[in-house]
């Protein structure tokens, strides 16, 4: 190495150290955060809350299969006990009858504070007569079986009132005292983690705990034929992070190895290969550091994307080594650097458009690419010449270029094929214009189809709530939130009566506001008033007052009973129902009211609901519609931004190249290649997603380099075997880098691979076809 003391080298080393420091301290994630909007609407904010913090994000579903039903039930109980003791879970539910009995006891003790029927009228002679007659009539029904033993203490049927208003449909099936799937072949547990869904590390720990506890139990009980399945949003996050991490490592290793082998084969010099990879490595490191500084966290997808930089940044050093070989110092700089600089600039313009995306995932990719490419180019330009040993010579590849010259010349005779291909692609795209772009978020999901199917089946087993339609309220305090939930509940009850809704859930059902509880408690009459009223009420009923002394006792106790607090509910299933619907946020309290729509195919009458909520500033949210809307917004925005980026590139090149014909010759191959790639993907049944769009930007970034080289003002690469060979080599490196991505099972990486790989080859070939021949 010579002249290591040169200032650029020192600056570079310092920069590398700084970037490495930042990258080592950066926080890495692979959760949904990359897909969440940066400036959400209120409805989107709710979606984000649910995805990162909400009940759904903490919910894990566990299925136990195999062995015998009795063994499964035993494993379910054992697992529930262990997990409850472990402290990683807020709640562990497996349908254990003992827990249900505890819940019922809690409801029964607080029935006069909880029952919506409790009012002063309820305890007048008329009110008592009506309520007790109803209870006696209910005894005629099988539904009254439960009531009979309670009649002496609860003759007005408050517990029935309470339980009757609970959502019993869709509750899980039971066998041997624990929840099982509909077909009885699987024991089911429902867990709520203590950690938020966005805390992937803690979620990974919780999931590992479930697996190890189950393995212990099964081996203790010698049940080697029992299996356990775990699903839930956290499992997806943990799995996809692991998949992306391992994929990123595997693909980078593969890609790097392949490119190194290619370069070794061509250069026949270890030093040159090592030096050639320095810009790539520096770029990748700078990219990660830039994202860590700019966004606080680095998403796993961004790292995965890093592999793509191998394919692009390595081009710069290839151009440098191949084209500058045998050059006097400075010759390459004068002749080729302006072209490369313009190529880098166009790439920056293309990726800069992503920076403006409201989709943090895209913005990260944009920043990563810009920082990476600029660094790689700068290192190539300013550092490599200093590091290059004076006597370094790479194997002369001019013969390859000369061998190709004939082919190149032949290609340019086919130039008329270009518009034909472009037109055909445009026709295909136009014919399929309604299904070019995938309209749902699932196209972006790193979750495999098998995982999604498992989740669906466990959810169906549990009758887990379908939280598609929600009414959302905000309030400054818990009390205010509960009061507003009660007010909105009043409006919704009207809709239930009219059949617009089948029902709804509310946190105020198990935790009424203090005001409501006080009103109910105040409605309870004194003992002798109640005794007198009872006497009158029972006159023509077959029940005698002296049998109801327990009722008088209970009401008397309830008159001085402390109000129900969240603490009193602690540890019961009811607390879970309240906690999942009443959320404390830094900016206040949020109430979720999930709606149940009537069975059948009738469309949900959204307008009726919105009319009923009018003036209450409660917000109606359709979660499913909202997440698809969100995605469509991203996609529309990303398409617009990309078009703006391409326009900026055209303007930039127009200004630099100054000749309209050269501009056309540079842009036509790139645009045509894009059209053909899109048409190819659509024709082979792909729906394009945001990641395909990113791939298309990459084609622009890589492809303009080729096109620019083929259209240098003064020369034609067809006449310069070395330039020709360097282009071919750069193209091969790109295709290897992206071709490997195309093999990835992670859909997002694969999407980029199958877009850029073919796109890069096409741009090179099309550029060659359209290259301006300077005939001498």
């Amino acid at each position, binding site marked *: 190495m010579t002249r290591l003391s040169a200032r650029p080298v020192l600056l570079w080393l310092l920069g590398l150290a700084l970037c490495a420091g930042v990258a080592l301290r950066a926080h890495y994630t692979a959760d949904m955060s990359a897909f969440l909007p940066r400036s959400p609407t209120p409805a989107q904010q709710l979606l984000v809350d649910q995805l990162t913090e909400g009940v759904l994000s903490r919910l894990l579903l566990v299925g136990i299969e195999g062995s015998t039903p009795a063994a499964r039930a035993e494993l379910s109980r054992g697992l529930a006990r262990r997990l409850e003791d472990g402290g990683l879970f807020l709640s562990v539910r497996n349908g254990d009858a003992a827990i249900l009995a505890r819940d019922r006891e809690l409801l029964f003790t607080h029935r006069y504070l909880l029952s919506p029927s409790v009012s002063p009228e309820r305890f007048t002679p008329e009110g008592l007569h009506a309520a007790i007659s109803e209870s*006696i009539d209910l005894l*005629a029904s099988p539904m009254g079986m439960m009531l009979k033993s309670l009649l002496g203490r609860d003759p007005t049927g408050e517990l029935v009132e309470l339980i009757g208003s609970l959502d019993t449909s869709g509750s899980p099936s039971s066998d041997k005292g624990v929840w099982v799937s509909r077909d009885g072949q699987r024991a089911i547990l429902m867990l709520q983690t203590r950690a938020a869904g966005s805390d992937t590390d803690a979620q990974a720990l919780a999931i590992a705990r479930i697996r190890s506890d189950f393995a212990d139990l099964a081996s203790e009980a010698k049940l080697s034929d029992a299996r356990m399945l775990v699903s839930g949003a956290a499992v997806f996050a943990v799995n996809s992070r692991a998949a992306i991490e391992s994929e990123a490592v595997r693909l980078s290793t593969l890609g790097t190895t392949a490119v190194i082998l290619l370069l070794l084969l061509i250069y026949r010099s270890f030093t040159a290969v090592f030096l050639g990879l320095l810009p790539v490595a520096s770029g990748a490191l700078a990219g990660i550091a830039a994202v860590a500084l700019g966004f606080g966290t680095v998403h796993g997808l961004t790292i995965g994307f890093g592999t793509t930089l191998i394919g692009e940044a390595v081009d710069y050093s290839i151009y440098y080594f191949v084209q500058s070989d045998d050059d006097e110092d400075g010759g390459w700089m004068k002749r080729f650097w302006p072209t490369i600089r313009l190529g880098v600039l166009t790439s920056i313009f293309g990726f800069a458009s992503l920076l403006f995306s409201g989709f943090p995932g895209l913005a990260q990719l944009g920043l990563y690419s810009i920082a990476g490419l600029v660094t790689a180019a700068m290192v190539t330009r300013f550092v490599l010449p200093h590091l290059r040993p004076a006597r370094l010579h790479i194997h002369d590849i001019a013969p390859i270029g000369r061998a190709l010259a004939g082919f190149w010349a032949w290609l340019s005779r086919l130039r008329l094929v270009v518009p034909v291909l472009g037109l055909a692609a445009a026709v295909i795209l136009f014919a399929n214009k309604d299904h070019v772009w995938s309209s749902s978020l699932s196209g972006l999901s790193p979750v495999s189809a098998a995982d999604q199917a498992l989740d669906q089946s466990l959810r169906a087993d549990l009758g887990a709530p379908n939280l598609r339609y929600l009414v959302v309220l905000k309030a400054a305090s818990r009390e205010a939130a509960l009061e507003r939930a009660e007010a909105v509940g009043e409006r919704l009850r009207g809709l239930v009566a009219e059949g617009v809704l089948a029902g709804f859930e509310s946190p105020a059902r198990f935790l009424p506001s203090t005001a409501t509880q006080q009103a109910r408690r105040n409605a309870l009459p004194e003992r002798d008033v109640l005794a007198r009223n009872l006497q009158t009420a029972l006159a023509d009923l077959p029940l005698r007052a002296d049998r109801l002394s327990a009722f008088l006792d209970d009401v008397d106790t309830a008159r001085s009973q402390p109000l129900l607090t969240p603490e009193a509910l602690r540890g019961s299933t009811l607390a879970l129902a309240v906690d999942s619907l009443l959320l404390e946020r830094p900016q206040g309290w949020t109430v979720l009211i999930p709606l149940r729509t009537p069975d059948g195919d009738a469309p949900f009458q959204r307008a009726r609901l919105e009319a009923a909520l009018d003036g209450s500033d409660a917000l109606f949210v359709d979660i499913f519609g909202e997440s698809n809307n969100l995605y469509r917004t991203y996609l529309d925005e990303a398409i617009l931004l990309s078009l703006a980026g391409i326009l900026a590139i055209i303007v930039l090149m127009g200004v630099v190249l100054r000749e309209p014909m050269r501009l056309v010759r540079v842009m036509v191959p790139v645009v045509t290649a894009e059209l053909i790639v899109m048409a190819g993907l659509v024709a082979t049944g792909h729906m394009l997603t945001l990641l395909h769009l990113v791939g298309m930007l990459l084609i622009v970034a890589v492809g303009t380099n080729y096109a620019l080289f083929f259209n240098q003002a003064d020369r034609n690469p067809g006449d310069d075997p070395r330039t020709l060979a360097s282009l071919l080599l750069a193209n091969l490196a790109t295709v290897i880098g992206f071709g490997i991505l195309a093999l990835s099972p992670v859909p997002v990486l694969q999407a980029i691979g199958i877009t850029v790989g073919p796109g890069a080859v096409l741009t090179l070939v099309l550029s060659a076809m359209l290259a301006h021949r300077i005939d001498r």
Partner: protein
Amino acid sequence: MTFALRLAACLLTLAAMPAFAAWDLPQLMTELARNQGGRALFTERKYIALLDKPVVSSGEMHYRAPDYLEKRTLSPRLELMVLDKDEISLERGKQKITLRLREQPEVLAFVASIRGTLSGNRAALEQNYALHLSGQRDNWTLNLSPSNPRIAELVTRITISGSRQQVRSIEYLQADGDRSVMSIEPVDAR
């Protein structure tokens, strides 16, 4: 003398045999199984210790062999209970409950008592009950004593009576001493 006695005993036995063979459990079951279904009115009285008078309800029933039974209570409140194969559903006002019998062994045992009788399925009955038949073909009484302790916790005895293939009344004596009696009046099938 001895011979004469033996002969007499033989004759007596021969004479007695047709009388026995004419009415036993297999025959009742065969006869019941022949009943393909129909409509009936019912009145049910529940005698509950806490109440001075029984709770009376009435309505109509519809049976279709072998596993569909519908009980429509018209008084004092409308209620519909449908037992269809493995599912029992109960509708009262706005409430509707559906249970799968497989998941509720106790409910299944209750259901089996009436369904087993209606369809003449002796094996199903004997899974949970010891059977005892008395009376004649035109006026028989079948006693079911729970052999399953979990059912015995709820019901002490079920008494079903009828004539020929027609069930006339079902009485449940509950473990807590309360009992319910349902009398059934067939409506002529059209």
